Structure formats: structure tokens, C-alpha cells
């Protein structure tokens, strides 16, 4: 009995996965737990394991292909087994990934038809086999990997005439771009208004050089980019944001941190950052304000006040940003928070975080202070109700007892989902947070 291997849901926000690399070949004998491929989800690149023993009979998707959750990736079974039923079953779907599977399946009988010649690998019926080639003319020239199908001649003519072959529609089999397509494109270009070319001659040489430069570089959307785009747009469109900013006196935090880091040095512990202290302060403040540590869940028809405090810390990485989660931050000491944050951020930059390490935050912080940003507003990381945007600690003249003295100040801005958190509730939380930061010894209690 052949067994389908389909695209699993590898993170709770995943909708599709890209099969980055096959690690097994058709015909390989596999045991449950063997890794057959790597899959890039919206969050990480993960190993895809099989859950059954069997021979890998067919790879249905190609490397680089994006596949919906539940779509067929491969088929396991016994050597020589008929898998047409499984392919047909999955082929009925209409999602992109499945359409591919169907296409692959359609090709099978053709190959068999061409196989009338005998037992070796007969080459006969070459014409018969190739007659099917022109079955679908003039549709897609590029396959899913972005490879453009064009005849060598078409490519040469295009390159000699500085035509972008990607802009040309192919009329050959499977959309192959052929000579006549390029010639038609050339004619179109030559027929284009002459005035566009004319003034170019009068322009100064340096301007012409700039015009010759490439105008942009196209970067394909990564899974992470797509996810950031989708989730943040969804957040901003559905959660009515409002913003509360408060100025915090950081004088004591600065001296407090100095002291504990002197200790850290003696004890050879990781140093504690301002951000770690703010994480801890948020966590403790959230315990007192469960309505801020919450989520608006429309589908479930409820508001959830979380009983645990899990702080997501936004980390910028090359491809975008991720938010590893410090779980139960309210119950952890500063040293543990510092250590965990550093470790998670390091692995985040290497894209080695497991999805569960980025899931389940009840509150998020985002810190741009290190860039000198004084204050900013952040977009809420759903389903959390609030996110705290942390600005830089500034040296500033402050008035103390009627005198102007040097001080240390920091602005934080809380973005609140007004469906859950009202102005007074958010302000109450910020006020508590400020009191912890302005008297950090309380964090130790």
C-alpha cells in the first residue's frame, strides 16, 4: 500500500512551505524518522521526516517549489507499486502545488506509450513521443524556478539586441521562446515611438551613462518576507492601534546595570543589557496588568488574559526579523533572561530557531535605541494585544528640585489593540513599568 507524504504544518502560522532540497532519491529505502528533504517555512528551514518505512517511489515536487500544507510531496511504498491512485487522489485538488502533481502524473502514460520497443531503454518512436510536445503551446515560458525556456537562437538574438528575454512571450511547446517570438519583440521595439530615441542623442554623455545603468535589482520574495508582509498588514488592518508614549528616568537603571555588570565580570557571567532589564520590567509589570497581557480572538469569540508572561523580543536578521520568546520572563532572573536572549538571538541570526521558540508570546518588545532612535511606534505582533517600542537612552538636562541637572531619559511607546486595551489600561501598565525602571531594585523582589 503506497503512502502519500504531504506538506506538514511545521509552524502555527505556516500556510505553505518551500521544498528547499531533496535529501533522498527516488528508489531509496527509507525508515520512519529518516529525513528526506528540507523545507523552508515562514520561520525557519526544517527537516522533513517520513513517518513510515518504505521505498521513495516518487518525488512529486521539485526543489525550490512552494507547496501548500497538505499537498502531496512524495510517495512511499513498495518497489514497483502502482501509485496512480494516490497521484489521482491528490491531483484532484486545485491548489498550485497540486496542479504540479497532476502534471507530473499526466506525463507518465506518455512515457509508457513511447516504451513499446522492447526491454532495454528503447529509443524508438522518437517522433511519437515528441508529437506530444506541442500539446500546450504559448503559455508559460518560465517554470516555477524562474528558468526561462528559450531556444539557444532566441537567446542569442535577444542578447545581441539587448532585449530582456524574460519580457517575451513564448509561442513554442510549453511556452518555449523561439526565434519568431524574439523577432516579433524586436519589431515591436523598433516600431515604438522614434522620439524616444531621438532626444537621447542630444543628451550629455554622463546622463546617457546613467540611463544605461540598471534601474533596479529584482529580489524574489522570501517566505519570511511574505510572512512579515501578510501578518503585519493583517495586524495593522484588523487591530485598531493607538499609541501611548512615556518618558522614563533611566538614571538608576544605568547605575544599577553598572553595578551588576561589575559583578558579572567578577563571576564571569554574561553581561546584562538595558534591554534585558526592560524585558524583566515589562514581565513583572504585566503580572500586575493581565488585561495588557492578553489577546483579542474574534473566531473564538473571546478575550484571553494570559496567566503566564512570555515576552517576544524582536531580533533583526539579514532576511527580515524574528521574535524569539523568553518564556515566563516574570519568573526568571536577569542573568537567565540575558543568557537566553543572547542565545536565542544568535540562533535567530543563523536561522536555526525552531518554530516553537518563536511562538506563543503574550507581549512583544522592539528596541531601536541602539540606532539612536528617540521614539517610534511598532505594529502589534498578533495575537498579542500590545507591543512596546523602546527608544534610546538620552543624556538630557532635567529639572530636579528646581535645578537643571544632567539626566538620563528613555521614551517607550506602547502600541495597543483598542479591541482589548483601552487608553487607561495601557497607561496604567506604562506607569507601573516606569516605576519599576525608575526604582530597579524592585525588580529583584
Amino acid at each position, binding site marked *: 500500500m503506497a503512502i502519500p507524504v504531504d506538506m506538514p504544518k511545521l509552524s502555527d502560522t505556516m500556510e505553505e512551505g518551500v521544498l528547499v532540497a531533496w535529501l533522498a532519491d527516488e528508489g531509496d529505502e527509507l525508515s520512519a524518522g529518516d529525513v528526506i528533504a528540507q523545507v523552508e517555512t515562514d520561520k525557519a528551514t526544517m527537516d522533513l521526516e517520513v513517518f513510515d518505512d518504505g521505498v521513495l517511489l516518487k518525488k512529486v515536487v521539485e526543489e525550490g517549489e512552494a507547496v501548500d500544507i497538505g499537498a502531496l510531496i512524495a510517495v512511499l511504498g513498495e518497489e514497483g507499486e502502482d501509485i496512480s491512485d494516490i497521484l489521482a487522489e491528490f491531483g484532484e485538488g486545485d491548489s498550485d502545488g497540486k496542479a504540479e502533481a497532476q502534471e507530473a502524473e499526466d506525463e507518465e502514460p506518455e512515457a509508457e506509450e513511447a516504451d513499446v*520497443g*522492447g526491454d*532495454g531503454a*528503447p*529509443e*524508438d*518512436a*522518437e*517522433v511519437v513521443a*515528441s*508529437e506530444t*510536445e*506541442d500539446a500546450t503551446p504559448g503559455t508559460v515560458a518560465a517554470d516555477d524556478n524562474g528558468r526561462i525556456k528559450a*531556444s*539557444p*537562437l*532566441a*537567446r*542569442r538574438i535577444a542578447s545581441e539586441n539587448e532585449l530582456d528575454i524574460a519580457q517575451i512571450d513564448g*509561442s*513554442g*511547446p510549453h511556452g518555449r521562446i*523561439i*526565434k*519568431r517570438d524574439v523577432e516579433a519583440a524586436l519589431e515591436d521595439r523598433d516600431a515604438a515611438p522614434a522620439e524616444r530615441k531621438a532626444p537621447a542623442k542630444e543628451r550629455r554623455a554622463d546622463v546617457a551613462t546613467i540611463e544605461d545603468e540598471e534601474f533596479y535589482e529584482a529580489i524574489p520574495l522570501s517566505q519570511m518576507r511574505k510572512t512579515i508582509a501578510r501578518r503585519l498588514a493583517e495586524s495593522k488592518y484588523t487591530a485598531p492601534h493607538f499609541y501611548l508614549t512615556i518618558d522614563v528616568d533611566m538614571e538608576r537603571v544605568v547605575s544599577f546595570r553598572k553595578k551588576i555588570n561589575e559583578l558579572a565580570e567578577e563571576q564571569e557571567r554574561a553581561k546584562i543589557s538595558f534591554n534585558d532589564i526592560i524585558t524583566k520590567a515589562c514581565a513583572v509589570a504585566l503580572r500586575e496588568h493581565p488585561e495588557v497581557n492578553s489577546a483579542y480572538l474574534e473566531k473564538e469569540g473571546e478575550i484571553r488574559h494570559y496567566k503566564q508572561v512570555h515576552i517576544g523580543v524582536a531580533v533583526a536578521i539579514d532576511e527580515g526579523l524574528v521574535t524569539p520568546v523568553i518564556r515566563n520572563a516574570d519568573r526568571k532572573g536577569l542573568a537567565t533572561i540575558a543568557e537566553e536572549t543572547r542565545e536565542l538571538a544568535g540562533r535567530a541570526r543563523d536561522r536555526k530557531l525552531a518554530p516553537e521558540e518563536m511562538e506563543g508570546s503574550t507581549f512583544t518588545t522592539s528596541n531601536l535605541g541602539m540606532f539612536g532612535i528617540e521614539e517610534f511606534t511598532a505594529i502589534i505582533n498578533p495575537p498579542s494585544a500590545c507591543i512596546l517600542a523602546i527608544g534610546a537612552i538620552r543624556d538630557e538636562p532635567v529639572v530636579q528640585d528646581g535645578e537643571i541637572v544632567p539626566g538620563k531619559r528613555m521614551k517607550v511607546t506602547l502600541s495597543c489593540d483598542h479591541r482589548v486595551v483601552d487608553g487607561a489600561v495601557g497607561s496604567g501598565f506604562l506607569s507601573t513599568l516606569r516605576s519599576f525602571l525608575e526604582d530597579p531594585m524592585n525588580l529583584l523582589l
Partner: protein
Amino acid sequence: MAELQFREAIRAAMTEEMERDEDIFLIGEEVAEYDGAYKVSQGMLDQFGPKRVIDTPISENGFAGLGIGAAMNGLRPIVEFMTFNFSFVAFDQLLNNVAKIRYMSGGQFSFPIVFRGPNGAAGQLAATHNTSVESFYAHIPGLKVVSPSTPEDGKGLLKAAIRDDDPVVFLESERMYGLKGEVSDEDDFILPLGKAHIVQEGDAVTIVANGKDYYIALEVADRLSEDGYQAEVIDPRTIRPMDFDTIIESIKKTNRCVVIDESNPFASISSEIAFQIQERAFDYLDAPVKRVTAKDVPAPYAKNLMDYYMPQADDAYEACRQVMYV
């Protein structure tokens, strides 16, 4: 111009050469008393006598070797195989002796010898008597292989083959011996080896074909012409050394090619032509090179299956339209 049958053109070439040079003799099964199994050597025994037109026992390995020995000693034999299907029992003579001794002796011996006879399919002769041998012999460095398509080419190329100082495998066809064609009256008409013939000029598609397939190519070119496309038909004439330059020049003009080849397809002359085109004219190709060949099975006996086994004009026509994208 005289109209001659193919067999008459071959005979004329041998006769003219034997009249010119006493060192030339013809040897093979039934070539003398019986006037040749296909009447190619008709009357030659009477003209040249039994010392120069020699019947042999049914022993290809023996008389091929005898011819090779004679060539080593300065004579210029024409060895006739009743069909090239029988040349396989003399394969070592062709593969190892005649093809390689010039090389192995550092040029001390040369082999001005022609092995000639019918090649390829000739109807319901079943699996063992329908083999096309072009690629077998063309594969061997040291052998030249010629395959004429018309009586005139047969005459001109055979005279060149006889005069060549190296061994030449000269492939005729049972099916074509009765074929008539104009043959030049020119005194000492010779066609050089290694030169292809552009039979018909065109710009729509290049069709390469030799021997019987040459006639398929012409038929296909006619049909394409009715559709409004001018095909360029190239007859290589010599299989090795093949005139790839002419083919490549044509591809540069038409950007596409169909090769018709009576051989079984795997590792055949058509494979080699397709390879050379992709290597030397890759950037000029607008479509993959297509082949129309015999099917990749032993030749069947039943007539309907045999007809299907052979390259078909309809398939060649379709192949042309495919590479032309019409």
C-alpha cells in the same frame, strides 16, 4: 547524359577503373559466373577474365582477408559482400586488420581496397538481413564510409573510392539497384569523397538524409513546399569523413534540422550529426534537432510491421513541421 540503373552505374565505375588500371580486380560470392547476385557485375567476367573477376566460396572472413593481403602487396581489390549483413563474419578483418595496420606499421603498408555491396533493409528479410551498418564502420578510425543516393553519385563516388589509397566501405542498396537516373557522360566523371551535396536549397529547415532516406527527404521537401516552406536537403554522400561544415552552414541559415536515418537510433550516424550540430551551432538552433530513424528493435518479418519499422515520410514531415513550430 545517359540514363542508367544504379547497378549499371556501379558497373560502369568498376569497368572504367579496371580498364584504366590492371591492378584492380573484383572478388566476391557469385560475382563472376553468375554475373553477380544482383547483376551488378554482369559481363565483367567476359571482359576481364577469371584472373580479375574472381568467384569465392561462401567465406567472407577468408576472401576479405585475401583482399586485404592483396592490397598490402600493391594490388587494388574491390571486395563485394553479397550484403553487408554478411560482412559481420569478416568483422575482425575490417575492424582490426584493414583499418589499423597502416597505423600500426608506421605507414609501411597502405590499403587501396574497396569493400562494397548492399546495405540496410531490403524488405521482408527479417531481423538478421536488414541491418544498416553505417555507424558500425564509421565508428572505426581508419575506415572511410561512402553511401551514394543516386546512380550518378554511385558512379562518381565509387571511382573516387577505388582510386583512394585507404580502405573504403562503399554502401549500396538492393532496393536501389533498379533505380534509374541520369549519369554524367563526362569522361572520367569523379565525385570527391568527404563532400556533401546540397540537393535543394531552402531556408525553412535542413533535412539530412542519405541512401533510401534521400528519397524520403525529397518527398518531404515537396510536401513542405506545397505548404509554402522551402526545405534545404543535404545528402552527406560520404558518411566518414562527414562534411559537417556544409551541414553546419545550413543550420546557421535554417536554425533547425531533421535527420532521416535508416539505422537503429542508438549511437547511430544521426546521433553523431545531432551532436555535432549542438556542439558547433548551438547558438543557431531554434529547436531541438529531430531524428526519424528505424525503430529501436530488430527488424520484424511481417510486412505491416516492417513498414512501420522503417523511417516514414509522414513522420519526417511531422518532424519538420515540429521543428519549424508550424
